[in-house]
């Protein structure tokens, strides 16, 4: 590529960056809506809690306490008592501390399940969108097949093959997202391919690699980010569903909300709060990510650009 064309390409790039880009505009509009702010506040608090919870938890979440164990029988799980805000869980551990620390483990599962799904999905979708032709056809058939299995069953069929560990849950849940992200990115990139700025770059003789990475990908990433935010919510719920079905983490000691909820299902008549608190935590966090994702989606929609 000649120096001239590089300069021109750079000029075009800088032109594209000038003014208000759709992304910046969308971001600005997103945070004008109270719904988005509520979502952001919930997500923000959740992330902060996830980071600081091991330091603020009043008791050790991974150790049974004799005071709690003393009163623990199959038909009685101690409720709140001095020093133990929410009393005991079914194993004589401090329930309140486990709930706090649960934020961290839950965020871990949600984030990694989403990231792995995004990464694999983007590789598939990116290849399909960049190459087109038979690569596109083959890869999209593959995603069709993944989509032809109901999402939870896809996760079940993967989790049933692997030993029950936290990473099994993460991988199984991640696979649900793969075809979604692949199709989204591919669709956005194909729309980009016939757009004016890609046409201009092609006419200037910009290398295909540069076009894909500097023109098509950055402009296609918006819907993927929105979907990832929404997927974080469903990933946390799906991980809980796997635990509920007995396909979750086999380490019952781990304080993760989905696992705590799944393990509390037999104890509803003994101490319902063991199920209710983790469930409410999951619902609030899922709602936070959903509110944020939905309002981002709405403001990315050019129809709403004013």
């Amino acid at each position: 590529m000649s120096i001239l064309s590089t300069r021109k390409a750079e000029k075009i790039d800088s032109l594209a960056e000038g003014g208000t880009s759709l992304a910046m505009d969308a971001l600005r509009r997103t945070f004008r809506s109270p719904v988005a702010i509520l979502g952001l506040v919930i997500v923000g608090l959740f992330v902060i809690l996830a980071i600081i919870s091991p330091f603020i938890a009043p008791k050790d979440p991974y150790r049974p306490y004799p005071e709690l164990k003393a009163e623990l029988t199959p038909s009685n799980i101690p409720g709140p008592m001095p020093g133990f805000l929410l009393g005991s869980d079914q194993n004589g551990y401090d329930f309140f501390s486990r709930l706090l620390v649960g934020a961290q483990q839950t965020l871990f599962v949600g984030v990694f399940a989403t990231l792995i799904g995004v990464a694999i999905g983007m590789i598939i979708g990116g290849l399909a969108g960049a190459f087109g032709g038979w690569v596109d056809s083959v890869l999209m058939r593959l995603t069709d097949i993944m989509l032809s299995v109901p999402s939870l069953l896809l996760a079940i069929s993967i989790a049933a093959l692997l030993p029950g560990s936290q990473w099994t849950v993460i991988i199984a849940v991640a696979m649900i997202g793969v075809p979604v992200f692949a199709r989204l990115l591919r669709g956005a990139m194909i729309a980009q391919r016939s757009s004016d700025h890609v046409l201009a770059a092609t006419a200037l003789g910009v290398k295909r690699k540069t076009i894909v990475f500097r023109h098509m990908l950055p402009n296609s990433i918006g819907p993927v980010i929105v979907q990832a935010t929404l997927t974080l919510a469903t990933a946390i719920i799906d991980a809980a569903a796997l635990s509920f079905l007995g396909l979750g983490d086999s380490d019952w000691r781990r304080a993760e909300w989905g696992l705590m909820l799944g393990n509390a299902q037999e104890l509803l008549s003994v101490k319902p709060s063991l199920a209710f608190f983790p469930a409410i935590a999951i619902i609030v966090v899922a709602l936070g990510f959903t509110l944020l994702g939905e309002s981002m989606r709405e403001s990315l929609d050019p129809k709403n650009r004013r």
Partner: protein
Amino acid sequence: MLRFTVRRLLQAVPTLFVLSILVFAWLRLLPGGPATALLGDKATPERVAAMNAVMGLDDPIVVQYFRFLGRILTGDFGNSLITGDPVMEEVSWAFPATLELSVAAMFLAVLFGIPMGYIAARFRGRFLDNATVVTTLVGVAVPVFFLGFLLKYVFTQEMSLLPPSGRQDVLIDSTRVTGIATLDGLLTGEFDATWDAMLHLILPAVALASIPFAVIVRITRASVLDVQGEDFVRTADSKGLTTQVVRKRHVLRNALLPVSTTIGLQTGLLMSGAVLTEKVFAWGGLGTLLEQAIQQRDYPRLQGLILLFAVVFVLVNLLVDISYAIIDPRVRVR
């Protein structure tokens, strides 16, 4: 129309074919191979070798695959490890229960979802609209099985209004005709059985309906808003048609097109949700079979169920596509 139908049918064939390869490969991906998995605790090297010989696992993989394909095409999915019965028999026995639950849930979701979505769109930006949108967002955030717990806790444990689990009271002596409990009672004239089955159906159906309901409300709302801005609605308005007619014939009818597709796509979610709901309410349908299969690592049953769910899902989407083409002629050309 016929050409479109045939083309869509043909498109489903490769999907199902590759799916069968994946499901076949799936059992072979198990640690120790299928024989070890099938034998479970009883696996010894001699037994595994004997099992391999019996099952033809020593043959070339391609031969094995086509044998597998031949078997599943004739409806033979092998025998369940838990009961020893043919998987196909178990599935056809449990299927009506899941069908009853799913149809009831979808019925509730459509019955309440479409009007709510329409009303929300009509009052866009007002309190009613915002309340509806928030309700649907919460509806999606609540895990289905937790909603089931909650309903069970409130309506059976606290208020003792409805039966906690199962499909029919054990004391009710009903005749099985179709396996759909609410229908059987009507067919045989045992109305007390139908009434009892309905009472059992309410909570699981409400729990399962939550997500499709939320999705239908939101799609209906978005779709009505979309159609309201169309030129033909303005034209209809300006040529003096009454608001009633415009709303019914022009807005609602066109707005329901995307809704009908969504209903098809919801089938997958419905099946996922049914697995969880059935566990909460000990429903005894396909979800219960699946859950037992997971607990006991019953791989033949698991394989049969996964394949069955996928086939049903593909077929339902095929039907939706075809019905969509009937409603909207523009689709046929694509």
